[in-house]
Every structure is written in C-alpha cells, then in structure tokens.
C-alpha cells in the first residue's frame, strides 16, 4: 500500500468509525515510523555512495596510471624501431598489449562504478523528495486536525455552544442579521443626518423669505390648479 493511500486511511478511517476523532493517532504513528525508516535507509544509501565514490576514484587513478605507462612504452617501442632493434620492439609490444588489456578491464570496472554512482544519486534524490513530501503531508494532517480543535474553542467562545451543536445555516442567519442591523443603523443615522441638514436649510430659506413660511396643502393645490389652466382651451 502506497504512502498516500495509508495517509488517506489514517484521515478517513478514524472519522467514520469513531465519529469525532479526525485522524487515527495509531495510523499517524505508523506513518511517522515509516518516515524514520526511510530516513535511516537514506543515511545508509549516502554512506554507500561515499564508499562507491572512493572506490571509483581509486580505479580512476589506476586507469590514468595505465594510460601514462602505455604512452611511455609506445615511445620506447618507436625508439627501438628507430634503432632497428626489432627484437626489443617486439618485447615492448608484448608489454604494451598486456597494459592495454589491463586498461580495458579497469576501464569497464570504472564505467560500472560510474553507473552505480549515478543510480545511487538518483535513488537518494528520489527518496529525499518522497521523505519530504511525506513529512509535509503528515504535517498538513496534524495542523488541520489542530484547526479543528481551535474551532471547538472558538465555537464555544462566540456562540456559547460546541461545534457539534453549531449549525452552519443558523450561524449564517446570525451573521446576516447582524449585518442587516448594522446596515439599518447606518441608514437610520444617514437619514437623521439628512433630515437635520435639510431642516436647517429650510429654516434658512424661510428666514431669507425665499420660501413661504406657511406653505399649506391649500396653497399647493392652488398653485397646481394655476399650472393646469393654460391646457384648458386646447381640451375644450
């Protein structure tokens, strides 16, 4: 079973069985143990890598030494041929053949080491990545569970109930009611302010004689009638 599905079980299993428990502490402990194990094998792998790299360096030195010896002997062989000493040249050629064989063998050992170093590095990187993401996932699960505990505290603090009694729809109603009350209060304040400002202006206009101080329904009716009159000849 993969890590993700185990995590899934840890988060899900407990909730469906125990009701309130959000994560299964036992399952989390097992996952944490798995992370510790992975870290241990990671340390082991790193140690192995160091050993393999050391071996690789030793073989690399051998290869270089053989390459140097090879070119030295090739120089000797040419010098022997230049001097016309065929017998010596043949002897040197034998030696060169030996060196070449050994070089080839060491080269293939070196290639093998290079491959395993690159494989090990790959494995270590992958494991490190997955350990990190496992740790992150477990942390998210634990903090989210903590969020739930915090919610219980908050629910009791603000509505005098525990979250199991808290109902989302009712809570929303409370929030909306409060917002409505605030809007009403603001509107009322605005209205009062407008009326005050308006009344003040009316008083000033009356004082200045711009508007009639004793406007009554009769005077308004009179004014409206006068305004209608010019239309009458057309309609008659």
């Amino acid at each position: 079973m993969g890590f993700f599905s185990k995590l899934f079980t840890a988060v899900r299993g407990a909730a469906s069985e125990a009701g309130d428990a959000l994560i299964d502490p036992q399952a989390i402990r097992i996952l944490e143990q798995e992370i510790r194990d992975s870290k241990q094998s990671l340390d082991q792998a790193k140690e192995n890598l160091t050993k393999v790299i050391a071996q690789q360096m030793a073989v690399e030195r051998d290869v270089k030494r053989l390459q140097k010896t090879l070119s030295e002997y090739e120089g000797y062989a040419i010098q022997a041929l230049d001097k016309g000493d065929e017998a010596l040249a043949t002897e040197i050629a034998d030696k060169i053949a030996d060196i070449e064989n050994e070089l080839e063998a060491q080269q293939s050992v070196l290639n093998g080491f290079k491959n395993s170093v690159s494989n090990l590095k790959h494995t270590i990187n992958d494991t490190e990545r997955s350990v990190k993401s496992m740790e992150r996932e477990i942390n998210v699960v634990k903090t989210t569970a903590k969020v739930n505990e915090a919610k219980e505290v908050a629910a009791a603090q603000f509505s005098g109930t525990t979250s199991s009694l808290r109902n989302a729809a009712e809570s929303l109603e409370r929030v909306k009611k409060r917002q409505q009350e605030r809007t009403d209060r603001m509107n009322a304040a605005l209205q009062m302010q407008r009326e005050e400002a308006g009344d003040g202006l009316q008083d000033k206009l009356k004082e200045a004689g711009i508007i009639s101080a004793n406007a009554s329904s009769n005077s308004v009716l009179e004014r409206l009638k006068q305004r209608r009159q010019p239309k009458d000849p057309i309609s008659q």
Partner: protein
Amino acid sequence: MTNQEKLAELQVGLDGAVSELGLEFKAELIKGNDVNENVIQVIVDEREEFPVYVTVDSGQILCVSHLWTEQEVKPEKRTEMLDAMLTISIPMPLSAFSKLGNQYLIFGALGKRAPVNEVIEEIATLSENTLTAVEEFATYLKS
C-alpha cells in the same frame, strides 16, 4: 524563516488588519501540543461564527474555514450536494472545498513566501466564499 517565524509574522500582520472591502480582522495564535501544530485564528468583524484558520507548513500557507458537518446534510440530498461542490470548485475564486472527518470545509493555499497583504486578501475572499457557500448550499442542509 522557519514555519513558526512566518506564522508569528502573519499573526502580527493580520491582527487589526482591514481588507479592501473594509472587513476588520482579529488574529490570535492558538498553541498546539507541538510548535508545528500552532494555528492562527482570524475573526472577521461581524462574522464571529465563521473564523478563518491559518497554518504554515514547509510548502504553503493554508487558510481554512469550516462550513457544515455531515450531520447537517439532508441524507437524500447528499450526492447532489457533493456533485455541486465539485462542480463549483473551479468557478469559485481562489477557494476549494474539502472535508476533514465529518466537517466540510473551504480552503485556500498560498506559497510560503506570500506577503501579509496577500494573506489578508485571501482571508477576505475565503470569508466571503464561506458565507456565499453556506447560503447557496442551504437547500442541501437540514434547517
């Protein structure tokens, strides 16, 4: 900066902050058994019933708000509700639905280096989305 330093920085930045729409925040650090379980509880003014919780882990800043519990869902409407939650997750700006145990929730995540003002906007959006979600999903919930 460690996760805990970031969390402490966010708490200071969020407490008393005001969002673009004029929502005022109160932020309080709630300590867990382990420092890695510390959580900030953000109370948005006039929405005390729906606090937003903020946590920091190695990869992200997670903002979570709780919606309703399994017990509040009308059993005959459950499938329809889940379908609606999945469908609306993409069109809903910056937030996604989730579930932890019996609790349905809504969350948004930011990169760990996100500055405080982005977290403020995230929380304001999440708070709006929480109210909208509870209102829109009321038909699936027991009254």
